[in-house]
């Protein structure tokens, strides 16, 4: 279910109408070509050998038996193929670029010695079929010297902890200094002195694998000195640039093709080690190489959301005004700093005294990195449970407590628009919050208890540069060239709709060309909720440019074409642009077995004007369901004695299935703040931010015990009730 409230928006011709994806038929008939569906003449299959140990030095490697196996055409190892995977480990966890490359002290290679987690890569083979490649990998003999390992971030910072790197386990920041990330606003000590009551509590959250349905793969094909890479990348432009940088090539020597891809949720950003391994094998073998990761390899060898520990201290006055907020957090990054390790959420509050210190820490677990709204769902789980707990303890309705304390625009920090009040009050009404929440948590009689929870958020809708090209021929048919790949949200269709609207032509008259760096201009890539606002704005401006030319020269005739292009540098005039949301959920907990069932879920969002209501609705529903899975099921557990991962894979991580899924009511409040393409803001990541917090608050409201460890699994609920 979804519906819309359009605040003073004029209806448009194409935008705002439920529109099937322009490639829907390819997707439902099996014609859509994903990376593994390509087959090139003479193509070999690649396979990677991975570490079975959490931390070990490689003493020797013997590949002679593997090389002698009929059908094997290339074997590469940490000894003979030392390629830096730049985006795999960067100082400060920032986007990989030339300055970060220069600054990074702990490099990740495609093969590593020592190996630092179960799944770290050691060698790879290419053979005439995948079974021979598998067999060859099993014939490689490695002598390991096992090293002590560490799994938990706080433990890793103890003086006597095993060291992942000689300098210790605190990750270096962008400047190469081994310091936590600190944000210090106002003066928390003054704030705590002002408080009537002070609350302290700790929360922890688990590792969540992105678990996109298509496991990582890459098909590399050298044509002379040019590398053609078929790979599922969320950002083909960045993937090309990163791959060129890693292999010592110029950008124009790399072509990245991603026609269809099976999801990513942040773990197919930039390039991946699979691209570099496939390229290296292909160069050695002289023929194309398809490298396929198994599901288990994908789970352990490609990143997921970082696990965290969060220690909060909150000062509050008796009237509910928050005077100080403090958090010390630890993020387990695995042995490579792929991304930031951030823990968000506190910035959604207006409290003038806020101190946050986050230590991203190396461990010998698998690598952590970006997963949809990278810093937020676990951070909101922590801070929103903390604040909900404080609200109940001082006898306030959490919604009132939020309205009193949430961040609002100020003269120094204006917003492009601000709609949190409407978003929250709309949700309160639709969900019937007052009737569903228990004023006294856990007050239901009997073992089956109901309760309701709420959370709110704001999330960046940043500005950035992208390009677009629009062409018209003498039949007045338009072609749009955009460097998007469409990982699932429907970007091709959205871009086509924006072009059609701007050009005043039906969507069926716009052909969209995407997913190929040799055919499409730069796009920021489908990460950070950037495509609609950044590439969308470039589409609008390219269309405007073309319209000016048509007005000037008239429509082309014969074999003439006219081409408009744009690379706008957008601005929000110094204002903060955010999208907003509030989620309300009712749960039923069976305290005899510890199970949690979602009874009702209401999600209200303000994401500016909605381009395609159908796909926007399902971005929110899908993200919310991912968030529910994170709240109550998913984790990657490790055996503390052996350092072995215990729950990789869908079955063991207990991913939600059809039968677990509640109806998600989605409501959009639509506003045009005057900045985005036709007033659009961001949607893709925002839906996942709130579910862990809202579900956690609802469970606490139902059972009367605050669950401080996510996922909130049955054993933890039983433990709390015991």
């Amino acid at each position, binding site marked *: 279910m979804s519906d819309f409230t359009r605040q003073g928006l004029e209806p448009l011709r194409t935008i705002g109408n439920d529109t099937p994806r322009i490639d829907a038929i390819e997707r439902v008939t099996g014609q859509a070509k994903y990376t593994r569906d390509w087959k090139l003449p003479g193509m070999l299959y690649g396979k990677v050998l991975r570490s079975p140990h959490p931390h070990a030095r490689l003493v020797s490697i013997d590949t002679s038996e593997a090389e002698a196996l009929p059908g094997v055409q290339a074997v590469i190892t940490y000894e003979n193929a030392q390629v830096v995977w730049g985006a795999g480990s960067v100082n400060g966890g920032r986007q990989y670029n030339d300055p970060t490359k220069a600054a990074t002290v702990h490099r990740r290679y495609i093969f590593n010695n020592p190996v630092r987690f179960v*799944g770290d890569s050691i060698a790879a083979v290419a053979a005439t079929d995948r079974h021979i490649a598998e067999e060859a990998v099993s014939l490689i003999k490695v002598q390991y010297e096992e090293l002590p390992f560490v799994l938990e971030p706080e433990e890793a910072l103890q003086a006597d902890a095993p060291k992942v790197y000689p300098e210790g386990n605190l990750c270096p920041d962008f400047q190469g200094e081994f310091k936590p990330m600190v944000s210090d606003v106002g003066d928390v000590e003054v704030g705590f002195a002002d408080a009537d009551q002070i609350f302290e509590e700790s929360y922890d959250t688990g590792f969540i694998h992105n678990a996109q349905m298509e496991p990582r793969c890459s098909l590399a094909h050298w044509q002379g000195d040019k590398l053609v890479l078929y790979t599922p990348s969320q950002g083909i432009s960045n993937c090309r640039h990163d791959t060129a940088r890693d292999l010592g090539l110029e950008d124009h020597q790399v072509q990245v093709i991603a026609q269809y891809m099976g999801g990513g949720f942040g773990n197919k950003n930039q390039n991946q080690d699979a691209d570099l391994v496939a390229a290296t094998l292909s160069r050695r073998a002289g023929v194309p190489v398809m490298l396929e990761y198994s*599901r288990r390899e994908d789970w352990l060898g490609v990143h997921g959301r970082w696990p965290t520990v969060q220690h909060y201290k909150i000062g509050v006055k008796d009237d509910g005004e928050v005077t100080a907020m403090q958090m010390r957090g630890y993020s387990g990054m695995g042995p490579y700093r792929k991304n930031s390790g951030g823990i968000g959420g506190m910035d959604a509050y207006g409290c003038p005294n806020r101190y946050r210190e986050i230590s991203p820490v190396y461990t010998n677990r698998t690598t952590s990195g970006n997963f949809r709204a990278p810093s937020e769902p676990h951070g909101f789980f922590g801070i929103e449970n903390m604040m909900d707990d404080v609200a109940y303890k001082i006898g306030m309705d959490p919604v009132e407590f939020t309205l009193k304390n949430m961040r609002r625009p100020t003269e120094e920090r204006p917003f492009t628009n601000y709609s949190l009040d409407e978003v929250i009050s709309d949700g309160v009404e639709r969900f019937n919050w007052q009737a569903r929440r228990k004023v006294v948590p856990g007050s239901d009689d009997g073992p089956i208890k109901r309760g309701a929870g709420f959370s709110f958020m704001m999330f960046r809708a940043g500005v950035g540069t992208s390009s677009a090209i629009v062409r018209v021929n003498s039949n007045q048919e338009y072609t749009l060239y955009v460097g998007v790949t469409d990982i699932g949200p429907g970007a091709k269709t959205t871009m086509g709709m924006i072009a059609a609207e701007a050009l005043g032509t039906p969507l069926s008259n716009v052909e969209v060309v995407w997913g190929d760096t040799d055919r499409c201009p730069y796009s920021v890539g489908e990460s950070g909720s950037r495509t609609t606002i950044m590439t969308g704005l470039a589409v609008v401006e390219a269309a405007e440019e073309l319209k000016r030319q048509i007005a000037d020269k008239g429509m082309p005739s014969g074999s003439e074409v006219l081409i408009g292009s744009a690379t706008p540098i957008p601005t929000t005039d110094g204002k903060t642009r955010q999208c907003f949301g509030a989620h309300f959920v009712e749960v039923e907990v069976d305290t005899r077995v510890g199970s949690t069932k979602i009874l009702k879920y209401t999600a209200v969002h303000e994401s500016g004007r909605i381009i395609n209501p159908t796909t926007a609705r399902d971005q929110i529903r*899908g993200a919310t369901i991912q968030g529910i899975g994170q709240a109550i099921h998913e984790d990657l557990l490790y055996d503390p004695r052996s350092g072995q991962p215990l729950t990789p894979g869908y079955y063991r991580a207990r991913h939600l299935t059809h039968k677990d899924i509640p109806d998600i009511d989605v409501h959009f409040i639509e506003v045009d703040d005057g900045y985005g393409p036709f007033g659009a803001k961001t949607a893709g990541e925002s839906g996942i931010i709130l579910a862990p917090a809202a579900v956690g608050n609802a469970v606490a409201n139902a059972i009367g015990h605050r669950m401080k460890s996510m996922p909130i699994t049955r054993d933890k609920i039983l433990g709390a009730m015991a």
Partner: protein
Amino acid sequence: MRDKKKRGHSLNKGNDPAVKYADPNNQVLNDKQQSRRDFLEGSGAAVAAGAGISAFGIPSAKAQSGNSSATTAINLTVNGTQQMLDVQDRWTLAEVLRDQLDLTGTKIGCNRSECGACTVLMNGQPVYACSQLAVWADGADIRTVEGLATNGELSPVQRAFVANNGPQCGFCTPGQLMTATALLETNPSPSSEEVKEALVGNLCRCSNYNAIVEAVVMAGEEGGLA
């Protein structure tokens, strides 16, 4: 919350030898067949306890002894077309469909019966093609996503997926469509609860579950696949 019975997609236990062949629970094996256990070990799906190279599902050299690339001639009917094929005994049905017959609509998401992306219809029943050896399918009638449309016209459930945004990334879509097709052939107007029950073995990490269930119910309301 898992329904274990459903995950194996247990098949009709009728008299059709091909169906018996394909039944992972069927203990009656002839010498052409491997046991389920042998298959799991040979294909690397067995989980090794503790540390070891096989922790990554890489079969040990021993398990691959000698004739691992031996071939067997089989007959399949795929989307109505008779196919005579020499298949390696270690090839799965999913591999044969994708690599030998170029029917790449069938996706491999986990290769171990967890996700359902590879679901095809074998003699009308949904099976995980990643977990069927091709030799087990000898004589079977196979339908894949490429066989759903007739004369270029989409089936009702395909049309409903187009109209209601059934695919997000689209990687699980072929599997969802095949299970939904089997459901609609036996239950032309399923309720959403019945759809969820039937599709429980098909995961969607985009978590587009609501839209998929709505689409299958919609397809039913159009009158099923008659």
